[in-house]
């Protein structure tokens, strides 16, 4: 074995896709300002067509290790709607519980490891671990809790295996739920310290009137199912999702852009907060107050603050769901049996970075005939560009380095889905 061999273990996954910010200003006038990110795996439809509906959630959960539960949930809801499958109360509680686990997991990663380094003026979480090890260790503790919660319900780490059409193939025990509940209670201390840390961060001041789009439900802060609701007053049944997304091709990007009533809209934690903040758990509302977050907030940088608020909400809701499941006891439930009749259905949920749609047509043989998927990052692209066009003229006199940094931070605030889109931000001034 050679003493030194140059090996890039994840070289392969790190170079796919590209994210370019292009800014072109001449004599102080902005001539070009755009973002290119590769969108949803373009073979989404092809990889599902002809496959049994029972495979769909397992396949799509592999699109991303961060949104694995989110893709699985949207996929299952699409199939369940298409096939007319009703979920039991227990299955709903478990679906919500694992979803909160993923929201917590992803938001911890994004806020601590992607956003926080900007405020500490370091390039990544690795040097951050050198100067603020307590914060990074706290993030890893919270991430472990979230990962273990997902594994308890989903049957294994990272990519859930127990979630299936109609319910779950594996169930947590009451003892596991009790142990998890105790850990969630313990995590409140870490959560309090998280809010305390993030409220000290000097968020960039930038606002722009924006339409925010999120699912909403009458009785809860919506993550799974609901009505598509916008801050401009739009309300749509999930079946009409295309009336909101209006995907269109744009010349400069391989990705499609989406727009509702305005030139663009935003999805994600800030959009959910702006649409549904009154339904947050009281502790999460306190956190929002502490962070200075008030609906309707039009500063996109505060999407990360909204994520911190949702972390509080997810921890508290998870405690409540554990309590409910412990009180009910866990019952084994019959698996859904396909009745030989297909159909069409839309599954929608609020994954960590925003509204996700899966839309399937299932044939009478149980195989998928057509599939469509619209990811949050795809919906946010046009809005990020609109923000950039508004922001750049305001800060152009600050010089190339500061403009670059502000734009990188802006893109990061949207928490773009790296797996399906981008790894590196290359800022070019042409």
């Amino acid at each position, binding site marked *: 074995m050679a003493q030194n061999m140059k090996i890039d*273990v*994840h070289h392969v996954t790190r170079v796919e896709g590209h994210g370019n910010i292009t800014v072109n200003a001449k004599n102080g006038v902005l001539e070009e300002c755009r973002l290119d990110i590769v969108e949803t795996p373009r073979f989404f439809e092809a990889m599902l067509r002809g496959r049994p509906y029972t495979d769909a959630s397992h396949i799509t959960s*592999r699109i*991303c290790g961060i949104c694995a539960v989110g893709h699985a949930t949207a996929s299952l809801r699409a199939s369940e709607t298409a096939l007319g499958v009703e979920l039991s109360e227990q299955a709903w509680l478990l679906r919500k519980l694992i979803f909160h686990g993923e929201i917590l997991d992803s938001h911890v990663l994004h806020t601590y490891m992607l956003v926080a380094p900007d405020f500490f003026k370091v390039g*990544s979480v690795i040097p951050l671990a050198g100067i603020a090890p307590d914060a990074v260790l706290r993030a890893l503790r919270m991430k472990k809790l979230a990962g273990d919660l997902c594994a308890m319900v989903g049957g294994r780490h990272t990519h859930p295996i127990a979630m299936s059409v109609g319910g779950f193939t594996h169930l947590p025990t009451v003892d596991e739920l009790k142990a998890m509940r105790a850990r969630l209670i313990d995590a409140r201390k870490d959560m309090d310290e998280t809010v305390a840390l993030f409220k000290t961060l000097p968020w960039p001041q930038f606002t722009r009137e924006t339409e925010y789009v999120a699912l909403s439900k009458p009785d809860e802060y919506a993550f799974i199912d609901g009505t598509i609701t916008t801050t401009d007053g739009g309300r749509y049944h999930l079946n009409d999702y295309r009336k909101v997304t209006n995907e269109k091709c744009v010349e400069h990007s391989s990705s499609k852009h989406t727009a509702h009533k305005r030139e663009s809209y935003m999805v994600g934690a800030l959009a959910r907060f702006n649409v549904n903040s009154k339904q947050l758990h009281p502790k999460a509302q306190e956190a929002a107050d502490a962070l200075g977050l008030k609906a309707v907030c039009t500063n996109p940088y505060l999407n990360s603050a909204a994520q911190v608020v949702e972390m509080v909400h997810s921890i508290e809701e998870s405690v409540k769901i554990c309590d409910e499941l412990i009180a009910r006891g866990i019952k084994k439930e019959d698996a859904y049996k396909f009745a030989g009749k297909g159909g069409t259905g839309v599954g929608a949920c609020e994954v960590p970075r925003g509204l996700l749609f899966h839309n399937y047509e299932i044939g009478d043989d149980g195989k998928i005939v057509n599939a469509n998927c619209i990811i949050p990052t795809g919906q946010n692209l046009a809005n990020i560009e609109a923000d950039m066009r508004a922001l750049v003229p305001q800060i152009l006199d600050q010089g190339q380095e500061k403009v670059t940094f502000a734009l990188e931070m802006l893109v990061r605030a949207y928490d773009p889905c790296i*797996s399906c889109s981008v790894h590196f931000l290359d800022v070019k001034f042409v």
Partner: protein
Amino acid sequence: MKPILVLGLGNPLQGDDGVGCRVAQELERVIASRPEQSVAESKEAAKQSPTRESEIASSQPFDSAAQNAAPLRVLLAMTRWQDVEVMDGGTPGVGLLNVIERRARVIIIDAAEMSIAPGAFRRFTPEQVALTGSAQRFSLHRSGVADALALARELKIELPEIIFFGVQPASVEWRDALSPAVQGAVPRVIEAILNELNQRMKSEG
């Protein structure tokens, strides 16, 4: 928790990037179907490796019996499976640290760009190579093994002994199957892992 973890990493929807997952799935299958096992073990293995999931990337099923019957059977019989867990870990990012913590030894199978022939694979430890991370461009969502290990080092988190089997990919385009070259490597990688496990168990008694 079992002290030894055999962990396949990667994305099976990105062609050869999924080779680690494929190796883990196939290894689970051959372990579950070995003749020496008890009924209880067989049930446990079946639970952990539902066929449906492992069929995701099944372009050419790996037939252990046809390819390498005698040595594989011997190797399987020798390995103390009560100490070994096999996991298809997908793309855990920094979550890798949660999966490997408190283990004694972790064998990681992953696609690795090594500028060698597609399907060729190498065994190495983190100390033997310069893992090209991206400390300045840490991108969490698909951050690789190198980033997770660098973070652990920075935080002085105690790690288990780690052994890599890196497999050179031919293509990592979005595609839910392995290339023929990498598919062909799967049984050889499994044999190498079994050898690794047995040699160590033998030397440790």
